[in-house]
C-alpha cells in the first residue's frame, strides 16, 4: 500500500516537473523564434501567463460530450506516456509504472490522445477542425514510418522491445545509441519534426489557414488543459528520445540539457522554414527519413 502511495506521489511530482519544463520550453521556443526573426520576443515565462489567463477565462459553452472529453483524452495520453517513459534512471521520485516501458505499447498509447482530441474537435462541427484533424492524421502516417523504422532497427539490433532494455544496453556498453546506431537516430530525429509540428510541418494548426485547426472551437479552460497536456507530452517525448538515443539521464540537470538540445533541432529547423502542403509533408517523410530508416535496419541486420 505504501508503495502505491509512494508511486502516486512520485507520479504527481513527475507530472509537475514535466508541466513546468514543458511550459518553459514552450516559452523559450517563442523567445528563440522571436530572436531569429530579429524581435525581442516575449519573456520565457510567457506561456505560464497565457496558461493562467486561459485557466481564469470563463468557459460558458460546449458542443457535446465528446467536445468536453477531448481535452481529457489528450491529458490521459500525456500522463500515460510520461508515466511509462523512464524519466530518471533509478530515481525513486520518477518511477515508471510497474512494468517495462514497452515501445510498441508506447507508440499506440501516444495515438490515443490525438484521436480522442480529434473526436472532440469533430463534435464542434467546425469544418476547420475536421480539416486539421485529417491533416494531422495524414502527417502522422507520414512520420510514423521513419520513426517506427528506427525503433525496429533498435529492437532487432539489441533484441529487446522495451525502453529499459535499450537503456540497459547503453549503460552496459557505455556508448549512446545515437553514436552506435547513427542512422536510426537520424531517422528518428527527422520523424521528430513531424511529431512536434513545428514549421514546416505545422499543417495541423496552420493559424492563418485553418484558424488553428482542431482547437478552433476550444477556448478558456479547454485550451488550458490542452496546452498543459501538450507541454507534458512534449517533455515526455523528449525524455523518450533521450532515453532511447542519449543513454537516459541520471539527474534532472543532465536530462534538461539533453532534452533542450534535442528540442532545439525541430525548433530551429522550423523557424527558418515555410509551411508544406499536406501531401508534400507526407512525401517528405517518405523520402530521406525513410531512406535513413532503411539504412538503420540494414545496419541492425548486419550488426545483429
Amino acid at each position, binding site marked *: 500500500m505504501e508503495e502505491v502511495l509512494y508511486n502516486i506521489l512520485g507520479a504527481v511530482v513527475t507530472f509537475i516537473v514535466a508541466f513546468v519544463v514543458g511550459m518553459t520550453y514552450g516559452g523559450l521556443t517563442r523567445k528563440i523564434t522571436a530572436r531569429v526573426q530579429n524581435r525581442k520576443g516575449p519573456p520565457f515565462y510567457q506561456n505560464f501567463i497565457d496558461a493562467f489567463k486561459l485557466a481564469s477565462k470563463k468557459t460558458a459553452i460546449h458542443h457535446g460530450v465528446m467536445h468536453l472529453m477531448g*481535452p481529457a483524452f489528450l491529458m490521459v495520453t500525456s500522463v500515460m506516456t510520461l508515466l511509462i517513459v523512464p524519466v530518471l534512471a533509478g530515481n525513486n521520485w520518477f518511477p515508471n509504472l510497474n512494468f*517495462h516501458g514497452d515501445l510498441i505499447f508506447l507508440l499506440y498509447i501516444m495515438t490515443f490522445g490525438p484521436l480522442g482530441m480529434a473526436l472532440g474537435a469533430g463534435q464542434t*462541427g467546425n469544418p476547420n477542425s475536421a480539416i486539421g484533424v485529417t491533416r494531422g492524421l495524414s502527417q502522422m502516417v507520414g512520420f510514423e514510418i521513419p520513426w517506427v523504422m528506427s525503433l525496429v532497427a533498435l529492437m532487432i539490433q539489441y533484441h529487446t522491445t522495451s525502453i529499459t532494455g535499450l537503456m540497459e544496453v547503453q549503460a552496459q556498453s557505455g556508448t549512446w545509441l545515437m553514436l552506435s546506431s547513427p542512422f536510426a537516430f537520424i531517422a528518428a530525429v527527422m520523424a521528430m519534426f513531424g511529431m512536434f509540428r513545428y514549421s514546416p510541418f505545422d499543417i495541423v494548426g496552420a493559424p492563418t489557414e485553418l484558424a488553428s485547426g482542431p482547437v478552433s472551437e476550444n477556448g478558456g479552460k479547454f485550451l488550458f488543459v490542452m496546452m498543459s497536456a501538450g507541454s507534458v507530452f512534449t517533455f515526455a517525448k523528449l525524455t523518450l528520445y533521450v532515453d532511447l538515443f542519449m543513454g537516459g539521464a541520471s539527474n534532472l540537470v543532465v536530462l534538461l540539457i539533453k532534452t533542450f538540445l534535442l528540442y532545439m533541432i525541430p525548433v530551429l529547423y522550423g523557424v527558418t522554414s515555410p509551411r508544406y502542403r499536406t501531401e508534400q509533408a507526407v512525401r517528405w517523410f517518405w523520402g530521406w527519413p525513410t531512406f535513413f530508416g532503411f539504412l538503420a535496419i540494414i545496419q541492425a541486420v548486419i550488426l545483429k
Partner: protein
Amino acid sequence: METYSIIFAIFLGGAVLTYFAGKLNSILQDILFLGSVLVPTYLFFSGVSFGSAMPFSLEGISLLWGIDHYSWLFALIVLGLGSLAAVYAIGYMKGKERKGYFYFNFILSVMSMLGIVVSQDLISFFIFWEIMTWSSYLMVIYNGKDIQRVGIKYFVFSAIGAYAMLMGIVIVHSITHTFFIEDMIQAYGHMSLQLQIWIPILFLIAFAVKAAMMPLHVWAPGAYSNAPMAYTSLFSGALSKMGVYGMVLILVTLVSRLPQGIWFREVLAWLGGITAAVGTLWAIKQDDAKKLLAYSSVAQLGYIITGVAIGTELGMLAGLFLAVMHALFKGTLFMAVGAIEKQTGTTNFTEITGLIRKMPWTFLASLMSIIALAGIPPLGGFVGKWMLYESLITSDHYLLVILIFFASTAGFLYCYKFLFGFFLGQEEKEWEHVKEAPATMVVPMILMSVFMFVLGTFPGIILKPINNGLMDLGFVDSYKHLWETSVIFNNWGDHVILQPILYSIIAIFLFFLILVVWKGYKGTRYVTTKDISTSGEVPKEDENLTFSVGFTQPFLRAVAPVMRRQIDKYYTEFAKGLEGLFEFMRRIYTGNAQTYALYVVVFVVIVLLFKDVLF
C-alpha cells in the same frame, strides 16, 4: 453422438419452417428464427464434448463429424456472433421485405459454418463450404443491387477457390482413398514433393479467397457492402474467419512439415501485409460506410493472415486473437452501420452528420469498436496488434513490420472518418427526427463492446482456448505459454502487464474527467453546432458546414501513385478478353447446315488421317 444430428436437424428444419412461417405470422417467424439459431447454440455448448466424433457414411464415403479445441474456438466465433447477429437481425429486418429469404439464408449460413468447423473429413467440409458460399451469395444479392457484377464476381471467386480445393481433395483422395482430414495429414509425409507443394497451394487458394487476401480480394468490398448489414456483421465477422480456420489448419498440419514451407509462409505473410496496406488505402478513399468497412475488413484480414502465416507461436496467437477481435469489432461496426441505415436510410458520409446526440448508444458501441479496430489500448485490439508486431519483430520480418505498421497507422484515417462522418460534425435539421435504434439492435452491440473491453484487459480468457486449439492441431514451438490472463509476453522476455495500464488509464481519465469536464459541464451549457466561429457569418438552418467531401484528399494525393493501379481493373480486362474468346467460340456454330455438314466431313477425314496417332 445424437447431438450433432439434432443440431443440424434443428438448423435445417428451422430454416425451412422459418421461411414458410412468414406466410402465417411475422412474430412467429421471428421467434422461430431466434429459436433455430439459439437452441442449437445452446445444445452445442452444453452437449458436445471434445474428442467424441460421429462417423457415418454417404454414397459409400465415410464421413466424420467431431470437434477439438481448435474447432471449438471457431465454433465459438460462429455461434457467438451468429446468436448476437440473430438477435440484431430481428430488429433490423422488422418491416423489410423478403424476411423469410433472409432468415433462411442466415440460418443456413450459421449451419454451414458450424458444419465446416465440426467436419473432420474433406467431403463434408467441402459440402458445408459450398453451402456457405451459396447461402452467402444469396445474401449478397439480397438487395438486388448491382448483382450481375458484384454477386457473380463473389460467386466466381468463391467457385474458383472452392474448385481449387475440390481438386486438392480429389488428389488427396486418389492417394489415401479416404476423405478423412486425419488421413490426409498422415499421408502427406509420404507424398511426392510436387504434390506436397501443390496440395497446400490448392487448399490455400480456397481459403485465401474467403479470407479476402490479395489478389483475390476484389469480390469483398462489393459483397460486404451489398449484403444486408445484419448479415454482413456475420459475413465479415465469422464467414471470412472460415478462410483463416482452413489456413491455419493447412499451415500447421501440412506446410509446417514441408522443408520448403518457409516460402509458403513468407509469401502468405507478405501477401497478408500487402492486403492490409492496400485494403487500408482503399478504405480511406471510400465515402460510403459499408464500402469503407468492407475494405477495412480486407485490411484486418490481412493482419490476421500475416499473423498466422509467420507461424511462430506468438504470431499464431496474434492472428487468432485478432480473428476473435475482428469478429467482435467488425460485427459491431456493421451492426452500427445497419442501425444507422435503418434509422436514416443512407450510409453515405457526405449525407449524414451529427448523429451522436440522437444515437448515443450506437455511437458508444462504434467508438469502442473503432478503438479496438485501431488497436489503441486499453481495448482488445491492442493486444492482438502488440502480439502481431512483437511476433514480426522477433521472427525477423523487418520490412513487413513496417508495412503492417503503415497500414495500421493509415487506418486511423478511416477510423476517424467513420466516427466523424456519422456521429460528429454539424447537427442537421434533416436528421432531427432520427431516434436511437430499437433495443434488440442496440443490446448486441453493447454486449460485444463489453467483450472487447474485457478482452483488452484479460486477453488470457481467449488466449488459453487458442493455445489449447493450437496444441490440439499439433502445433510445436519451443516457447510455451507466451501469455497469462492479463499479461502478454514476447519471446525475448519483454512483456506488458495490462491490468495496471487499464487501472491507471481509468484513474487518470476519471481524475481529469472530474476535474475538467465535470466542473466545466456544470459551468457550461450546450450550444448547437451552428454556433461556431465561421468568421462571423451566421450559418443558415439548412446550411451544412461539415467537412465531409474529399475528406482524406491530401493523404490520397500523397499516395496517388499506389492507388492508380487497381487489381480490379486487371480482372475486368481479363474477363473482357475471355468474353471475346467465348464470342469467337460461339461463332463456330454458324447456324448454316452446309457448314455443319462440312464439319462432319472434316472431322471424319481428320480422324481417319490421324488414326495411327489417335488409336
